[in-house]
């Protein structure tokens, strides 16, 4: 799992916060323990002073007691009485001070017992002193005993003080121990926090810089988009589906003929610009959009306030954000020009199709229907020839011969025309065919004239290609018969057919071809040839280079060749040298 920058920041801040809380907790604990120690010290001092007070009061009592014993003056008894009272107060205060400490309590109990014992001795000696003026043996004894008791009391107090001192020392030691490491610890943590905060600051600073850069990029991108929209005649919009709010780009307003942001971007407002006839369909599209949250291409017309009608096409795609919001992002394009162009092209296409159909119908019907009367003329002539020839004069027979050759020529023309119109049939099927076989078939078809002319045909091994076989066969027939027809008298025709694969870029006429390779077929003969100036016109319909009487061509054969080659996306060229021969070069594109 990789940490995103924002996650890292959160972690750093979390650690920082935790550290600060720790510092607070530690400080509180230490201050607390300090004030506790203070309390202990204060208590100890109060205790000590109370103990001192007890000693001092006891001494006062002793002084008063001794004065009375010496003088029997009751004046001395007053401080004695007072100090007794004071000691009781002192003891009571001590008792509350050491309430929590059991061992001190025990010490205090001992002290109290000893004090009360001392006072018993005081009282005894006072009672005896009341009766006798001089110091008796008993009193002396009692005084002695009183001194011992006093020592005991001193010991008790010393013991308590010792204990208290020990307590104070312990507490102090503990305090010092605790407080001793605290500053260092706090300081360390503080430094650590500072480092973390500095790191966080650096990170935030970096992020801010990136954010700023991104923002700038975004601004540039926005400007670019705006420009692109204007140039492309397109616009963008955002539909916040959850809150049903829209955002229209400036150009969307322009597409409906308004100033940018000139009305509130709502569906209702936009709807008012949709062509009346398209509103229902557009509404359905919008409903579909809400349901499916995806918009296929919706095409509708927008009407500007000045009455201009434009064709628009909208497309929308849903974008789910991580925080549960749904946006439909849309692009609307003005396709009026495309629509217009499409309509024009469609119209032209229809016209072309119509024209083509008419032409080929006319061609076919003309050729076809012309054949019937011609056939009858020819048949009747043949009847005349066989049945009535003895009744005809020589002149009559000559005329019949003329009619015969004319009608034969007409038949040839009609048949070639028919062939030509059939060649334009574009729905012919392209099939993989072995060209050698087509050439053999063509030779078979022409076998009579080949034999008659004693012609020699040499050919390379030809490839297999995707062609309309009957057309290619016709092409071969036409080219070979062309060579046979225009042979030089007295020289047996020799036709060479070669094949090679060529790179299109190496051939001038193929430079613009989209195909990389072409098959090149060359049909060369040793016939009468032609002037190279006629290299192109030779392929035109009804174009003939020779008189009808010399050579019996119709001027359609090579036009058919050209048409067949073009049907196969190829190119045909003619090269001729008068009295040397002619070459027909054909290029057919192919994929390797």
């Amino acid at each position, binding site marked *: 799992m990789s940490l995103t920058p924002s996650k890292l920041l959160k972690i750093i801040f979390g650690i920082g916060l935790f550290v600060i809380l720790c510092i607070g907790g530690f400080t509180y604990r230490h201050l607390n323990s300090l004030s506790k120690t203070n309390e202990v010290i204060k208590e100890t001092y109060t205790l000590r002073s109370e103990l001192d007070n007890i000693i001092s009061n006891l001494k006062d009592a002793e002084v008063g007691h001794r004065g009375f014993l010496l003088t029997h003056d009751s004046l001395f008894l007053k401080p004695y009485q007072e100090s007794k009272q004071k000691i009781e107060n002192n003891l009571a205060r001590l008792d509350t001070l050491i309430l929590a400490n059991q061992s001190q309590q025990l010490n205090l109990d001992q002290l109290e017992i000893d004090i009360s014992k001392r006072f018993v001795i005081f009282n005894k000696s006072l009672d005896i002193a009341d009766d006798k003026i001089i110091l008796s043996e008993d009193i002396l004894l009692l005084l002695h005993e009183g001194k011992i008791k006093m020592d005991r009391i001193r010991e008790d107090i010393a013991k308590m003080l010792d204990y208290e001192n020990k307590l104070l020392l312990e507490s102090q030691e503990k305090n010092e121990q605790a407080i001793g490491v605290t500053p260092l610890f706090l300081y360390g943590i503080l430094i650590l926090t500072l480092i973390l905060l500095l790191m966080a600051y650096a990170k935030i600073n970096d992020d801010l810089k990136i954010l700023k850069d991104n923002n700038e990029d975004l601004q540039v991108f926005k400007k670019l988009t705006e420009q692109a929209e204007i140039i492309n005649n397109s616009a963008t919009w955002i539909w916040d589906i959850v809150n049903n709010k829209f955002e229209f780009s400036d150009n969307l307003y322009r597409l409906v003929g308004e100033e940018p942001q000139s009305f509130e971007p709502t569906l209702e407002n936009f709807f008012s610009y949709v062509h009346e006839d398209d509103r229902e369909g557009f509404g359905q599209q919008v409903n579909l959009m809400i349901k499916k949250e995806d918009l296929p291409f919706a095409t509708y017309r927008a009407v500007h306030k000045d009455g201009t009608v434009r064709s628009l096409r909208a497309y929308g795609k849903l974008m789910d954000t991580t925080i549960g919001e749904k946006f439909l992002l849309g692009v609307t394009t003005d396709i009026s020009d495309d629509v217009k162009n499409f309509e024009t092209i469609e119209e032209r296409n229809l016209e072309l199709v119509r024209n083509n159909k008419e032409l080929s119908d006319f061609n076919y019907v003309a050729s*076809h229907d012309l*054949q*019937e009367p*011609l*056939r*009858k003329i*020819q*048949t009747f002539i*043949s*009847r005349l020839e*066989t049945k009535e020839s003895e009744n005809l004069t020589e002149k009559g027979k000559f005329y019949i011969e003329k009619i015969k050759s004319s009608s034969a020529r007409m*038949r040839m023309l009609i048949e070639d025309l028919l062939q030509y119109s*059939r060649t334009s049939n574009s729905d012919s099927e392209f099939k993989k065919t072995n060209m050698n076989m087509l050439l053999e078939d063509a030779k078979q078809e022409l076998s009579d004239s080949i034999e008659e002319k004693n012609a020699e045909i040499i050919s390379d091994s030809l490839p297999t290609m995707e062609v309309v076989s*009957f057309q290619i066969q016709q092409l071969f027939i036409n080219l070979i018969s062309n060579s046979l027809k225009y042979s030089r008298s007295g020289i047996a025709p020799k036709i060479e057919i070669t094949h090679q694969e060529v790179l299109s870029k190496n051939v001038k006429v193929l430079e613009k071809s989209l195909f990389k390779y072409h098959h090149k077929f060359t049909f060369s003969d040793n016939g009468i040839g032609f002037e190279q100036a006629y290299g192109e016109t030779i392929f035109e319909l009804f174009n003939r280079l020779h008189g009808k009487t010399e050579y019996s061509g119709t001027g359609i054969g090579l036009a058919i060749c050209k048409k067949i080659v073009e049907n196969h996306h190829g190119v045909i060229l003619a090269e001729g040298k008068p009295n040397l021969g002619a070459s027909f070069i054909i290029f057919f594109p192919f994929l390797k």
Partner: protein
Amino acid sequence: MNKEYINIALADDDEDDILFFTEAFEELRIKNKVSTFKDGIELMIYLEKLEGELPDLLFLDLNMPKKSGMECLEEIKANRKFKDLIIAIYSTSSSEEDVENTFVLGANIYIKKPNNFEKLKKVLSEVVTTNWQYHTNSLNKENFLLRL
């Protein structure tokens, strides 16, 4: 064929063609009887009413008024009664479409009307003397269109 004569029917709307056809048969040395019909309807009425033997050969022009040769061919082939009838298409053109369609519909041979009387005689004698039993079995697209 162990009959005295060969029974031939021709449906063609062209009087000249009928003339050539009958003359050609007259000149052939085969004994024959030719019945001619001016259109498809006339032909079909004749065939439907026929009680006796079917013609040995039916020559059918394609381009006829009222009912074309193609329609006649379809009707004949749809009727079991005429299943043995040999049908030769006899038409001015030999467009690929027509040749293909009549082949598919079940005609036995396709003849393009020759433009020479001698050739016509040759073609007709060829068709009449063909052993149709054998020819029908080996019939294919290539030998369907008669070439001489």
